[in-house]
């Protein structure tokens, strides 16, 4: 069974149709790269998956469980939506770290709030609470090690480089162990010499139980890391397949001209 099934997502802003029926599935452990020109709806699609936008139509299932159905969405409570969106994580182009907290606190904050809520519900004692909080800290430190920033745990975001900020943002998104981690152009806000460290971290996250969706303009990264590539144009999936299929044997004329246009800029 696919971990993610998206069926016929549509979304308009006013009379602009941004998504015109998006269908795809993703298997557990797969990395999906989404490419496409500016304005084709890539960000909007990720935002729909993360419940930051509500699609006008369509359905979405994760692990077979229906998380979104346009017909029924209005009935959901805030709390229900909050719980459902935890299946997804999102790394923003502009990091959006919390400036007033240390790197470590950025990573632990959301888990602490969730666990506090849960512990209050079961009237847990102080000792249990401390144990849980310690577990959250330990997990955060492991994640910091994963992104190679152990020594920055007590730094503040304003003391980090852009690349380091983005690696913290990745650790923060991983802290809640989402089923599917989404990245929206994670290196676009970075100086060129800093993109490498972030892409390496993302590449290193690839594993059999981590499913990722990466919107990117880095074609080499999409070719080298993705298991599946989607080329989006004008709110539809113009081409979908393995990197080899999409990059080397594109079926659609649009895809070919997009890839050729890109090549002119690769020296």
């Amino acid at each position, binding site marked *: 069974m696919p971990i993610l099934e998206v069926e016929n997502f549509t979304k308009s802003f006013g009379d602009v149709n941004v998504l015109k029926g998006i269908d795809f599935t993703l298997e557990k452990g797969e990395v999906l790269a989404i490419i496409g020109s500016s304005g084709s709806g890539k960000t909007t699609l990720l935002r729909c998956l993360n419940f930051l936008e509500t699609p006008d139509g369509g359905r979405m299932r994760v692990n077979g469980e229906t998380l979104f159905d346009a017909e029924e969405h209005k009935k959901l409570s805030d709390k229900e939506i909050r719980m459902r969106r935890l299946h997804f994580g999102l790394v*923003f182009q502009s990091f959006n770290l919390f*400036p*007033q907290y240390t790197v470590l606190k950025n990573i632990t904050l959301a888990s602490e709030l969730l666990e506090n809520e849960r512990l209050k519900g079961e009237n847990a004692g102080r000792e249990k609470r401390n144990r849980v909080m310690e577990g959250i800290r330990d997990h955060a430190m492991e994640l910091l090690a994963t992104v190679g920033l152990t020594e920055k745990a007590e730094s503040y975001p304003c003391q980090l480089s852009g690349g380091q900020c983005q690696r913290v943002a990745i650790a923060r998104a991983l802290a809640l162990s989402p089923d599917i981690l989404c990245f929206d152009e994670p290196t676009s806000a970075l100086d060129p010499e800093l993109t490498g460290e972030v892409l390496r971290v993302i590449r290193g996250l690839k594993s059999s139980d981590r499913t990722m969706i990466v919107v990117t303009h880095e074609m080499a990264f999409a070719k080298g890391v993705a298991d599946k590539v989607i080329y989006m144009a004008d709110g539809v999936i113009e081409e979908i397949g393995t990197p080899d299929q999409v990059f080397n044997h594109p079926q659609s004329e649009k895809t070919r001209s997009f890839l050729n246009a890109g090549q002119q800029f690769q020296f």
Partner: protein
Amino acid sequence: MSWLYDIDWAEVWYVTVQLLNGFKMTLGLFFLTLIFSLPLGLVFSFGTMSKIKPLRYLVKGFVYIIRGTPLLLQLMIIVYLPGIAFGMPLTRWAIFGGNVSAAYFFGALAAFIINYACYFSEIYRGGIESIAKGQYEAGQVLGMTKSQIFFKVILMQVIKNILPPIANETITLVKDTALARTVSVMEILFMANEILMLKQLIWPLFYTGVFYLLFNALVTWIFGKLEAKLSYYKV
């Protein structure tokens, strides 16, 4: 040092005691205004940003009127309107138990609180609207509730942003308390004026200025400390 012998120390003592008495009133007005108008301003600012249109326009209109008219006018209206328009002067309200100066004090206090709450609400609104949308969205995708996002993520950034304008308003408030004199609140300038009228002494006016200067130095120092405390992060 012969001029020292010319000073009438009894007079200096008398003036000092009178001014200190007035300054107690000034401080009371200052602190009570701050304590109530800072949170009330937050309520007003939520009103001006409310999704409920009638409420939003009502609060916005109110804030516009208060900010667009002189505080002096508002003081006079609040203190004299109940007596003249409804035949129920503040001084005869039961809660003041016949204490005339308390009646004037609390009347003036109400005007100050409302006026400053409106100014603070605009500062809060600017501060809240200056926070990038991405901060809210980052909280949302991490499963936080709306109130967690506001109190755990947004508020500290807003506080840092608004500290300088709040400091400005607070210093203005120190000086604005002198307006209460016009509605018979015996604050420090009222006392200085009494001395001027009764004893024909001009120097206590300068002495009064020193009170304001010293107090504002203290206020400035406290806000400087607060800003330094929050300088470890950038919004």
